[in-house]
């Protein structure tokens, strides 16, 4: 419809444009402003925050909040390191597992592909729920305080495997056949021939998984109590949470707690949030289009 040449806009179109531009503007701003507010507030001075709270137009610029955040930087750097380590290894593992499985299930000459597909797919229909899984992980697999407990639980999302399988089905079988005639084995074919032509798939799956790992706090909360192994999101959750608890105390009228508070918490919370989401927002313009593409890659039936 966009390509239509309009000589003059009819009245109904003018009304429609007002509605569509208007609502899109309002909702788009509702999505953007909170991020701007957090960013700007992280640079506000303590006194301005105490007086005026979070504001769209900052009064006094200050790096004070960031100085507090990085006052004892060991924990933040550790959390950053842990998040990056888990994200990188987890993404690599997850992409490898889902493409490798998808490749085998997409092979027309693999006789048990339907049986195995059902075997994987059934797990999306029925699952045992949180409790048996948690007991298995903690009591039998020894997941307490290990990096692996933040990597493995998200290493093989069946849905990603189905996307991979659908994508691989689109790769001409002749490629595999001719390679087999030349004497290449199945593993070699996968790594040397299939993966290089599946880069859009790898990019999409990789980004989806990387985002999942980067944003994970759940597995960290369940399995990791060692402060040296906790990740960024969990660190932020703890920071926001303890202030939440404080707020509840205030709400109950125990105002004496307030006297002991010397931390400029309002600014620290915002600065810490910026530290956590910074990399994602920074990469956002570059990765956005891959996400949009990825959604349409996966739109084929499983």
């Amino acid at each position, binding site marked *: 419809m966009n390509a239509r040449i309009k000589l003059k806009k009819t009245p109904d179109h003018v009304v429609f444009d007002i509605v569509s531009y208007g609502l899109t503007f309002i909702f788009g701003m509702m999505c953007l402003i909170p991020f701007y507010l*957090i960013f700007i507030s992280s640079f506000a001075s303590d006194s301005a925050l105490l007086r005026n*709270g979070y*504001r769209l137009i900052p009064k006094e610029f200050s790096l004070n909040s960031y100085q507090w955040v990085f006052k004892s930087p060991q924990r933040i750097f550790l959390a950053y390191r842990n998040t990056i380590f888990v994200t990188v290894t987890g993404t690599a593992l997850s992409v490898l597992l889902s493409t490798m499985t998808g490749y*085998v299930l997409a092979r027309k000459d693999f006789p048990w592909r339907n049986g195995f597909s059902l075997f994987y797919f059934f797990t999306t229909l029925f699952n045992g729920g949180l409790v048996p899984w948690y007991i298995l992980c903690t009591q039998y697999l020894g997941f307490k305080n290990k990096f692996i407990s933040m990597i493995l639980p998200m290493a093989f999302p069946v849905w990603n495997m189905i996307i991979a399988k659908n994508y691989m089905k689109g790769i001409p079988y002749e490629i595999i056949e001719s390679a087999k005639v030349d004497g290449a084995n199945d593993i070699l074919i996968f790594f040397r021939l299939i993966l290089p032509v599946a880069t859009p798939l790898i990019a999409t799956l990789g980004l989806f998984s990387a985002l999942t790992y980067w944003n994970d706090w759940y597995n960290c909360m369940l399995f990791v109590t060692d402060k040296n192994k906790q990740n960024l999101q969990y660190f932020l959750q703890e920071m926001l949470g303890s202030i939440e608890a404080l707020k509840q105390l205030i709400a109950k009228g125990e105002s004496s707690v307030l006297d002991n508070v010397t931390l400029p918490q309002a600014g620290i919370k915002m600065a810490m949030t910026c530290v956590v989401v910074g990399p994602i927002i920074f990469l956002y313009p570059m990765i956005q289009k891959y996400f949009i593409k990825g959604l349409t890659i996966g739109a084929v039936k499983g």
Partner: protein
Amino acid sequence: MGKQDKPLKTANSVHKQGFMKEVSANKLLLLMLLPSVLYVIIFSYIPMGGVLLAFKNYNFAKGFFGSPWCGLSNFKFLIISDKLWPLTRNTLLYNFAFIVVGMIMEVGFAIFINEITCRWFKKAFQSFMFLPYFISWVVVVAVEEAVFGYEYGIINQLLVSLGMKKINIYVNSAPWPFLLVLFRVWKTTGYGSIVYMAAIAGINQEMYEAAEIDGSNIWQRIFRITIPNLVPTMFIMFLLAVGNIFRGDFGMFFQLIGNNSVLLEVGDILDLFIYRAMVSSSNIGMASAAGFYQSVLCFITIMTTNWLVKKYNPEYSLY
């Protein structure tokens, strides 16, 4: 198995040989499946067997096999607690609200963005709407603080400057059903609308041209052409979401509602209850009973909706 060599199937021993032959012919492919097969067995199939915990009096020291059976007593406690119905109702109603409001927003903005002709505006605002999808629910809590926070939140600052009283959303459960829907829709609309934009791109343009020549206005074109053409996609998205209607978004409810007893009055869902009962560990029997109940409910709804999808249009069914 062995569909290609049918004549071999006549004799059992020969068939077995054929099977072993096929295994050895595909040994590398099977080897490539091995890691994910093991993964799925360990992390999905074993926990499926673990639903039997619901019928056991679990004891951490004795483990899964050592703990004694206790019949239906876990379920009895669960039913006596009188929690099951409100939890199920909340899970269902919140998910239903998310699905309906979400779909209206997603379809609406897909149509609006598609009709917007100003390129930079379209691109910029689509990016803004997509932005909240990229953050975790932990960060949403920071957003909540900045916008609705009692002391420093921008809305309360605004209320004060207008001479009105501050609103403390952390001690008042009334606005939460609305707030939960708001946060949910805020986070997922941009992402969800992409599916519908792809569907709109697939609509035959000639229909619009013909309708325009016939003197239709834009509202008629949207309600008579665009939306009817989106109905199949909407229907499928709806049924897919309905399949999971008894599984709440734990991350969202845990971060926004958490353990705040006031907010739990309106915001408690099955997943939160199971988590709380589990970590308090004295209640692990009740947690697994509730988990069993939820798993069975989910399975039934998924099977039912898929059956419906198949009936409606076999091409869209999941399997």
